[in-house]
C-alpha cells in the first residue's frame, strides 16, 4: 500500500508538469536573468579610473542595468501571471485541477534551492581553486566551467525524468550536456560560453514546454456539467 500511495503522490506532480508551462516559465526566467547579467558586464566595463561615476558611459550603462533589473522582475511577474491564466483557461478544463500537498511543494522548492546553491558554490570553488593560472593546467581549458554547468543541468533533468517520466526532460538534459560540450570545443571564454549556454537552454526549455502545451491542447476540454 505504501508503494501505491507513493505512486499516487507522484501523480499530482506529474499533473503539474504535464502542460510544459513550468518549462516555458523556467526558460523565460533563465533568459531574463541572462539578459540582466549580460547588461551588468557592460556596466562593469565602464568602471575605469577613480572618477568613473562621472563618465557618460557609466551613467548610460547604470541606467541600462537598472532597467534590465526592473525588466527582469517584470518579465518574471508577468510570465507567472500568464502561466496561471493559461492553466485556468486551457489546462484545468482538460486534466482537472490538483494541488500537491504543501509539504511536498516546500520540499521540492528547498531541493531546487539547495541544488542551485550547490551548483553556484561548486562552480565558485572550482573557479577559486583554479585561478587565472588554470590555463597552465593540463586538465583545464576555458570550457571547463560551461561543461560543469552542462553536467549539473543534465543530471537535474535526468533526475526529473526518472521521477516523473516525461521524455522532454530527457531531451532537455541531453541538450544541456551537448550544448556545453559543443561550446567547450569552440574554446570561447568562460563568460560568453556560459551566456550562450543559458540562452540555448532557455530557448530549448521554452520550445520543449510549448510543444508539450500544444500536445495538451489536443485533448478535448470538458466541464463538470459535460462529464459522464
Amino acid at each position, binding site marked *: *500500500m505504501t508503494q*501505491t*500511495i507513493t505512486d*499516487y*503522490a507522484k*501523480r*499530482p506532480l506529474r*499533473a503539474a508538469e504535464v502542460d510544459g508551462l513550468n518549462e516555458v516559465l523556467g526558460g523565460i526566467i533563465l533568459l531574463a536573468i541572462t539578459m540582466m547579467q549580460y547588461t551588468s558586464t557592460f556596466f562593469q566595463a565602464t568602471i575605469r579610473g577613480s572618477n568613473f561615476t562621472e563618465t557618460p558611459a557609466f551613467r548610460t550603462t547604470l541606467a541600462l542595468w537598472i532597467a534590465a533589473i526592473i525588466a527582469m522582475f517584470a518579465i518574471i511577474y508577468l510570465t507567472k501571471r500568464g502561466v496561471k491564466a493559461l492553466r*485556468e*483557461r486551457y489546462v*484545468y*478544463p482538460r*486534466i*482537472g*485541477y*490538483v*494541488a*500537491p*500537498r*504543501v509539504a511536498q511543494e516546500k520540499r521540492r522548492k528547498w531541493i531546487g534551492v539547495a541544488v542551485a546553491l550547490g551548483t553556484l558554490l561548486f562552480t565558485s570553488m572550482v573557479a577559486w581553486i583554479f585561478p587565472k593560472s588554470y590555463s597552465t593546467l593540463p586538465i583545464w581549458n576555458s570550457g571547463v566551467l560551461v561543461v560543469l554547468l552542462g553536467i549539473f543541468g543534465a543530471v537535474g533533468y535526468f533526475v526529473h525524468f526518472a521521477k516523473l517520466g516525461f521524455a522532454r526532460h530527457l531531451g532537455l538534459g541531453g541538450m544541456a550536456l551537448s550544448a556545453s560540450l559543443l561550446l567547450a570545443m569552440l574554446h570561447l571564454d568562460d563568460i560568453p560560453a556560459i551566456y550562450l549556454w543559458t540562452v540555448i537552454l532557455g530557448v530549448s526549455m521554452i520550445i520543449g514546454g510549448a510543444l508539450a502545451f500544444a500536445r495538451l491542447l489536443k485533448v478535448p476540454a*470538458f*466541464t*463538470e*456539467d459535460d*462529464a*459522464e
Partner: protein
Amino acid sequence: MNESLKSIADLDRVIHEPARLMLVSLLSSIEEADFLYLLSETGMSKGNLSSHLSRLEAAGYVEVIKTYRGKLPMTLCRLTDTGRRAFDEYRAALKAGLEALEADSQPATLAQPTLRPVEN
C-alpha cells in the same frame, strides 16, 4: 474470535469500500483537487463519484467546496484532518491485521541443525 481477524472486522467501513478507498488514498496524497481531476484519475462515472464523495463528506472525512472557475462551476475536494486521521488509523489497522494473519498462517519453523566442520 481470533484477535487478528477481529482487527480486520473493525476496519472503518466508510473507507474500506474500494471506490472510497481509492478516493481517500488519492486525496491523502494531495492538498486539494477538483471534480474533473478526481473523475479522470478514478475512472468513475459522475454519479458514482458524487455519491461516494457525499458519503465521505457525511462522515466528515472530505470537505467539498462548490465554487466557480470563471463562469464555469468547479467542485473542490480535500481530505479533512478527521479524514486524514481516519485513513492513517485504517492503514495501521489493516496492516496489523494482515501481518497477524500472515504470522498465524506460517508453519512452525523447525530448528536448523548446526553444521560442524568434518574432522578427518
